[in-house]
């Protein structure tokens, strides 16, 4: 590990680092140990509280609620990406009639809390006479409006960061403005902005948990339900622990897939570059 912030440790610094390591380990283990001890003392690890997770029906329902979370995530992610691209194109258009509404759309929906957005759809619209609003619809619409606006800014920043020559070359070979955007600028912008897009996808996955507050039956909702089962010792803490493990697992899998895609994409670019180099 080389860092510019500190010198390569000499003998004195090495001893100090050992002390620091030991001290950190003691503090961290102390905190974890204290939490575990409290969990143990208050009976969170008793078989009674974990028994409910051994039932096949409960496990099956867990799979179902994971499916519900993933469904909201998938629809929300695809919708946000599409809306983001459309809004980015709108903001880059020369027409004022497209440009300004798209600007206000992204600014407005980024400023409203996502939960309030979901509440407006779920509680507000039916009271204003809009029929057929389900919790799923409210979650997905909220996710798409908010994250679509965020992604629009990401795409726009990506497109504007590209060298001017890309656009000019496109026009020079006779492509229309739309074709240049779609075929030349967007693919490069997506590649340049991939890390940001991926972290936004993780945000979408995490934000599906807001559905719990508007009664969408997803992982956290079910964990809360299990926690209220008095006959099994109200296993609130165990249920939340299981939910946390599932969420962290899903997010890590998503980041893992994204990293894989990223390395594939960047290696493809390298291949192209070497070929160009050989031809030259």
């Amino acid at each position, binding site marked *: *590990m080389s*860092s*510019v*912030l*500190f*010198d390569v*440790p000499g003998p004195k*610094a090495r001893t100090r*680092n050992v002390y*620091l*390591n*030991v001290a*950190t*380990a003691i503090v*961290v283990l102390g905190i974890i140990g204290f939490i575990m001890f*409290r*969990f143990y*003392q*208050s009976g*969170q690890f008793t078989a009674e509280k974990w028994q409910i997770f051994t039932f096949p029906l409960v496990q099956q329902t867990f799979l179902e609620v994971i499916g519900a979370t993933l469904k909201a995530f998938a629809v929300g992610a695809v919708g946000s990406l599409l809306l983001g691209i459309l809004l980015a194109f709108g903001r880059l258009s020369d027409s004022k009639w497209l440009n300004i509404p798209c600007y206000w759309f992204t*600014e*407005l929906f*980024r*400023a*409203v*809390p*996502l*939960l*309030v*957005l979901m*509440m*407006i759809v779920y*509680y*507000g*619209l039916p*009271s*204003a006479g809009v029929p057929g609003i389900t919790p799923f619809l409210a979650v997905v619409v909220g996710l798409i409006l908010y994250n679509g606006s965020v992604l629009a800014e990401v795409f726009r920043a990506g497109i504007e960061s590209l060298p001017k020559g890309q656009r000019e070359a496109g026009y020079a070979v006779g492509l229309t403005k739309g074709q240049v955007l779609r075929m030349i600028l967007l693919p490069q912008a997506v590649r340049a902005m991939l890390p940001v897009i991926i972290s936004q996808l*993780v945000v979408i996955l*995490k*934000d*599906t*948990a*807001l559905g*719990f*507050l508007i009664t969408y039956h997803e992982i*956290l909702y079910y*964990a*809360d339900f299990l*926690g209220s089962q008095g006959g099994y010792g*109200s296993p*609130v*803490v165990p249920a*939340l622990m299981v*939910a*946390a493990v599932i*969420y*962290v697992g899903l*997010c*890590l899998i998503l*980041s893992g897939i994204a990293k894989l895609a990223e390395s594939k994409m960047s290696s493809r670019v390298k291949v192209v570059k070497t070929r160009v180099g050989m031809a030259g």
Partner: protein
Amino acid sequence: MNIITDNSELFLTGFKNTGILFIISGFFALILGTIVAGMRVSPAPAMRAAGTFYVNAVRNTPLTLILAFFALGYPRLGLPSVSFMNAAIVGLSLYTATYVCEAIRSGINTVSVGQSEAARAIGLPFMKTLSLVVLPQAFRSVVPPLFSVFIALLKNTTVAAGFSVLEAGAIRAYLSERGEPMLPGLLWVALIFVVVVLGIMTPLQRYLEKKWRVAR
């Protein structure tokens, strides 16, 4: 318009509590985030590992789940009881601190290498290099991302409404109890957030960004 004047005390209490949640959690998140950022660049491997573990674990957990733990799980542990407000402050601080940490860490990376090399050359140890030379410059360059983090925190406070805190996000539930129409109430809440974010936070961000810009 009637709905906000008829229920002014509800809106006032709600947004007052939102403000309290925001300021106190923001304060603690800033301190904790800076400490964790310092740990993540420190010479001791155990400190780096602890910081990385904390950031990765908390950033991959939904805020709703963290707040649920402090509001629903914590009272079961037989520890001294805390109010729902304080539980929400703890949850929001722990969650936001990870984002503050990552913003500051990226700021540390933007400070040019020569700065910390010069600091080392005149014999400053790690803590002094970080606190006297690198961090003051890093903070200036992370004003925009840090403000985004705090705007996100302001919006995230509404999640606490799901866990028995009377703040802006909970106004809807109280309105429906009083038999008021929910859509206008919710739209007012949304409008106030838009005004605060676009009318106060964003201009402040631009102003500070300009004022503290580092000449390079």
